[in-house]
């Protein structure tokens, strides 16, 4: 049986891992390669680098981070942030990434999903989604880090993503992100019911119990967290032991 995956996410700016409580309060928490090695040692099932650098130079630095990590870490690596073309996919995969994650650019240009899936295979195309309750009983898709409402229905979007050949969806709930009250069970179920591809839960995790909850109450394949791991509130090993105690299959 497939194991449920625990995925630490590293936000990288100019080659440094940063974590912001809000956009003004971004602080450095370390070297991405060293952190990836440490998470690998703790038992991370996959590692996500999210490039929050907006500059061209920053991209090169990010690819170096991927290259150096791929020499020391032997679990799948996923890279996202600023990916806007098939060429970006190619450069990132060549640097040693196994998967590439697209978010805003996929909303603006959905063909990027199908083009990348056709050329590189569905297994490496992850579509990230930031979504929020629309007050009318549904959910809307946002872009640019959750700042711009695209008036796009989440149900329609996940169907299109799946039909275009994406390999996975990483669903971040704006409603629960940063609140630390648990993953958005409702929104995750809404998406899991509509697609067959794996769904990664993101946003809202604040304690150990939230990991078992998301796997017991939804069909999510993986759970992603950042600050909990960065600030050493929890280790990945602790999460794995917790899942084992709840009879959830984990590596």
């Amino acid at each position, binding site marked *: 049986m497939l194991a449920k995956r625990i995925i630490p996410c590293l936000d990288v700016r100019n080659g440094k891992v940063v974590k912001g409580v809000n956009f003004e309060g971004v602080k450095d928490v370390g070297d991405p390669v060293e952190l990836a090695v440490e998470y690998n040692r703790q038992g991370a099932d996959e590692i996500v680098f999210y490039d929050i650098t907006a500059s061209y130079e920053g991209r090169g630095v990010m690819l170096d981070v991927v290259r150096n990590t791929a020499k020391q870490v*032997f679990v799948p690596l996923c890279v996202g942030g600023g990916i806007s073309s098939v060429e970006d996919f190619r450069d990132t995969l060549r640097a040693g990434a196994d998967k590439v994650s697209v978010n805003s650019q996929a909303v603006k240009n959905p063909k990027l999903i199908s083009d990348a899936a056709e050329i590189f295979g569905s297994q490496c195309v992850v579509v990230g989604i930031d979504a929020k309750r629309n007050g009318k009983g549904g959910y809307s898709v946002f872009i640019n880090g959750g700042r711009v409402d695209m008036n796009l229905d989440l149900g329609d979007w996940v169907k299109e993503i799946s039909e275009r050949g994406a390999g996975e969806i990483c669903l971040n709930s704006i409603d629960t992100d940063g609140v630390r009250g648990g993953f958005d069970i409702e929104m995750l179920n809404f998406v899991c019911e509509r697609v067959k591809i794996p769904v990664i839960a993101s946003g809202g995790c604040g304690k150990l119990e939230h990991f078992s909850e998301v796997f017991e109450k939804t069909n999510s394949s993986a759970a992603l967290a950042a600050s909990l791991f960065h600030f050493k509130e929890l280790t990945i090993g602790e999460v794995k032991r917790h899942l084992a105690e709840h009879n959830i299959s984990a590596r």
Partner: protein
Amino acid sequence: MIAVIDYGAGNLFSVKNALDFLGIENKITAKAEDLKSADKLILPGVGAFPDAMKMLEKSGLIGTIKAEAAKKPLLGICLGMQLLFQKGYEFGETEGLGFIEGSVKLMTPENLPIPQIGWNSLEFNEPCRLLQNCKNGDYVYFVHSYAADCPSKNVAAYCDYGMKVPALVFSGNVYGAQFHPEKSGDVGLEILKSFCSL
């Protein structure tokens, strides 16, 4: 020296990174003389069965691979593992390298997505030296849509994906991993190490 066979299909660098990390001398190569002078061969592969066979034919290495695999260990990884069988049924029927009895077919698990992507546990079957430092139930990383259909005697370990999927196969000197040992953490590195120390 381990020759990592470069025939235009595959994730050669992650295999190389893993061997380098283990301190095992290796070379990515498309030259017959390197395959002859190597101690062992690794055949990687990502993509589709017919394209990969075509590229192997174009490389002119099939004769050398067959001759050398009679004398030294060969490890196929992912699609490279599938090519070890007699036939593949991806986009029609294609002849494989024929080292191991059986064929490669689309998986048909009920209610599970294709491809299988993720960490699945090994269920040991026949004893195999590549698993000497692993435990039954250890997790390895899979990414595939097709699976081998072959006799149980050639299967060192299966995984369960709504059906019994041959995960590690072998016949004589020839070994094949459906999973990616180079992406399977410490367990994968142990399997690579065991292969390299055969």
